[in-house]
């Protein structure tokens, strides 16, 4: 199995940082709490998506969609926001991380 375990902490940290900054930009309040939620939400979705991608089902867009939906639910529950806002936050964060991923992969 070629899961990049050695890179897991770094990749997870990059994802958390990017998603946190995107959320912070859109929410602009309670930054510490938002950081905690960014850590928690990404700790739920990122390792599972990575494992499934590398060992079971290498379908990037489908997995990214599942992550997007899961994050909507978690964000709505944790931030106690409207569904529309949760969709926006999840979409923006995942769009930016996917974009960065593509740029890095194409280098």
């Amino acid at each position, binding site marked *: 199995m*070629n899961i990049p375990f050695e890179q897991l902490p770094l990749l997870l940290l990059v994802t958390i940082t990017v998603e946190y900054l995107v959320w912070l930009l859109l929410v602009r309040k309670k930054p510490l709490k938002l950081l905690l939620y960014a850590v928690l939400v990404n700790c739920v979705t990122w390792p599972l998506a990575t494992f499934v991608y590398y060992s079971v089902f*290498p*379908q990037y867009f489908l997995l990214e969609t599942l992550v997007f939906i899961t994050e909507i639910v978690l964000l709505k529950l944790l931030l106690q926001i409207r569904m529309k806002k949760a969709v926006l936050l999840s979409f923006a964060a995942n769009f930016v991380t996917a974009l960065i991923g593509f740029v890095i992969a194409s280098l």
Partner: protein
Amino acid sequence: MNSKKATFTAFCVLFLFLAVLFLAAPKVSADVLIPGYKGVEYCFQIENTNDFPDYTFVVHYTFAMENYQVVRGNECMHFYKFNKPKIYAVKKSLFNEVPLISIMNSDNHSKLTEYIANDKNFISSDVEIESISQIVDTDPSKKIVDELKIISIENDMLEIEKSKTIYTYTDGTTEEKTYVTQNVRPLPSRLIIPLSSYEIMYFAIPAAALIVIIIILVARRFRKGKTEGAKNEHSV
């Protein structure tokens, strides 16, 4: 405990947990047979060289113990696990193996890279072939073959795709699995993967994070209930 203190405590617990997980995880070395793993034979073959009769195909093994091999039909090419094979096509009328043989007979095999890079007749492909030398004990495979397919040969580009992986099991049967994504080798159906301690991280981390999320949500609900109770008491 106020809200800020609770957030800070949750942070500390989570980071401590993650730090312990990462530090406790075993590091994998590429050159050591890891306990729970066994060796496996690996090679790759090109299925349709006969569709391009005007070309000779050459594999340049770079990185370690530099070498080359002229592809003959769909023979399976074995190589040292740290080699990075790079495939080239050369017009048969322009291919001259003598310089390659003389470099291999010399002491400096690294001149191969220079020679091939400078010879404009060598048309390179960017297909990445990853050797596999170890598999988990529970994998019934004894041989793994990656089959490549030549898509096209243009002036300066040789397009090759990985089409399938053929697994030969210890009982002699074989199974073909098609590549869905070029950089991910399809796994054999008969493989049962026991999760190693580091792979467990991929489930332990989400589980831990989910538990913290549930605690936060339950605590919030509990606090809300308490506040509402106090309000009701106050109004009575």
